[in-house]
């Protein structure tokens, strides 16, 4: 992208304008996500920077909204903060309960989606697979079909089968939504998979099971883990299905945020959002490291 020596003045001007434009677009992408982090430490219940915050006055900042995440929904939030106070938090605080629900649902949905998705990706990446294109299209469709349609269909289906208001129902639905991501990432890892490795294992006397666990599995593991992380994030971020088929006490974090945004929006939402941004930074880093590892393992060029 370097400017050649023979560039005309007009080209030079354009080149720097272009870089500024790109900078502004990157700002548009990242600023909304980063701006909520300082705002979540606002001492006042406003969504904007107060004068004290702009002067970096310490009294303009506080962690009261993070504290509210713990105390909201507690039976006795003003009690001294000893062991029984923390037990109250663990059992009754609305956000803590939502986090527990989200983690339980996310964990089982991810497990289900990853196990079934990896198995299917192994089949789909074989050249002899019949109706490959059609089956692939069906399996990816939960990602393409608008979530409101899926949720509406599930509402009818679950009230018919009695799965409405159950954890099983939400887990099954979230697993379905996560499956496309597992399929995509695992098949991507299997592209360029060197099948002579499995043949070599077989020729050395390994049975198919041993070959799978000793040869195939370690090689596709990075893809499987990325797929699992995608599936987990999908479940962890899903609100529409929960709105349609979950009972009132099955609040998840996004559901709780949804309520917060629609009803009593307070900077407490921003503190949750900040925590979620930090989680997504960690996830992104993990996936990126896995991708590089996978490319190194498969002998592709780094990048």
């Amino acid at each position, binding site marked *: 992208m370097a400017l050649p020596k023979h560039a005309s003045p007009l080209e030079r001007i*354009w080149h720097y304008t272009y870089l500024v434009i790109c900078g502004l677009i990157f700002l548009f992408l990242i600023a909304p996500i980063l701006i*909520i982090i300082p705002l979540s430490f606002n001492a006042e219940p406003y*969504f904007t920077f107060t004068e004290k915050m702009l002067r970096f006055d310490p009294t303009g900042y506080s962690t009261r909204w993070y504290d509210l995440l713990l105390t909201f929904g507690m039976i006795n939030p003003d009690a001294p903060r000893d062991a029984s106070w923390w037990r109250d938090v663990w059992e009754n605080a609305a956000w803590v309960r939502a986090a527990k629900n989200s983690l339980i649902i996310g964990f089982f949905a991810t497990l*289900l989606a990853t196990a*079934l998705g990896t198995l299917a990706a192994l089949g789909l990446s074989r050249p002899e697979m019949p109706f490959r294109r059609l089956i692939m299209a069906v399996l990816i469709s939960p990602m393409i079909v608008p979530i409101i*349609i899926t949720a509406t269909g*599930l509402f009818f289906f679950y009230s018919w089968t009695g799965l409405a208001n159950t954890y099983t129902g939400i887990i099954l639905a979230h697993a379905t939504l996560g499956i496309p*991501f597992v399929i995509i990432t695992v098949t991507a890892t299997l592209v360029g998979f060197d099948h002579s490795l499995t043949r070599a294992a077989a020729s050395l006397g390994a049975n198919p099971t041993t070959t799978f666990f000793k040869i195939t599995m370690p090689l596709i593991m990075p893809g499987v883990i990325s797929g699992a992380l995608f599936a987990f994030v999908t479940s962890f971020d899903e609100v529409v299905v929960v709105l349609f088929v979950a009972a009132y006490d099955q609040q998840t974090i996004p559901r709780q945020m949804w309520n917060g945004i629609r009803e009593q*929006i307070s900077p407490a939402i921003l503190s949750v959002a900040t925590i979620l941004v930090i989680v997504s930074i960690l996830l992104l880093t993990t996936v990126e490291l896995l991708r590089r590892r996978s490319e190194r393992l498969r002998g592709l060029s780094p990048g």
Partner: protein
Amino acid sequence: MSDATATLTTVDGKPLKAALAAAERRARWRAFLLVVPLLAFVLITFIVPIGQLLKRSVYNPAFSDNMPNIVAWFAENPPGTEPDEEAFAALVADLRLARENKTIGIVGTRINYDLPGSRSLFTKSARKAKRLEPPYREALLEVDEDWGDPMLWQVMRGASSAYTINFYLAALDRTRDAEGRIVPVDENRRVYVTLFERTLILSVVITALTFVLGFPIAHLLATLPLRYSNLLMIFVLLPFWTSLLVRTTSWIVLLQSQGVINDLLVTLGIIGDDGRIQLIYNQIGTVVAMTHILLPFMVLPLYSVMRPIDPSYVRAARSLGATSWTAFRRIYLPQTVPGIGAGALLVFILAVGYYITPALVGGSTGQLISNLIAFHMQKSLNWSLAAALAALLLGGVLILYWLYDKLVGIDNLKLG
């Protein structure tokens, strides 16, 4: 001897061709069996629910199940028959029955979908039905003369069959007149076609905006050395990994009238404190937030197409005398078309069905068709109409999906 040369056989005497075919068949089955568990799972948790939704859009037994006598009368008499004393007697019997079974509410609601304002007619008449005496025709008309309305009889005849396409007609702002012909509804009741149009227009606008914003940065990322572009890629991937609700919240914080952008403009003196701009809870809010949320889906396919483009083509064009603009337009741009197509289709498909962001930042003018489906599911409880709207949206999305598969191929869908 001649036999052996004509057909090659395996050790155990099978013809080689047959043995090969059998082996291939086994391999196909092995591959297929790996996919079967997931296919069955998706069939149950996804395809069957969608099927139920489609069924619900053409099937509503609320009237036919609860009004047996009048349904029987409709079955015996061809369309166009003037309702006689027998019909009114059947109707009164059904009203009594429905009142007894407490189903009059759902019966009235069902007719109300096709003929607004008739729910109270049913509940009121059912309350009085017990005391009515023959001749029933006069007695019912005494209760309310709307019972003589040919339109009402036409609607009841339509509802006497559980299967109907009336919900699709309603979803397209059409209805049936007293003779059963399909006509457009009153001007002031037309909602859905306008909303479909708005959904399409806003989706096109959002797709265009993601392209305008996505193309320059995809180009920059593709031409920078890898160690810089991988670093800058974080700016694209971090929003991609951040919760949708977090990103929507951020835009509420930025755009609301007491929010960061308005405060900034006031501080800079561009607008007065009383002239704060309404940037959210309208179409601007929906378009801005959705453009931000969908931008990575445009940048990633563009990037993966632009990365392998050989810069020497543009250099060759320049050396042959093309200006930089001509070289870009005639040489570089055509090579990026597959990426543009893939990104634009993906963004458009996702935008058409968007629900969460318009619901939170769209106000009343920034709502899309998905929000209306949710409204009919949760507030008005007209589930069949919601299902019909959903089916129409689904049809549109599936056509686009098929197009995407034809042009881009699902295998080329990449995440990060």
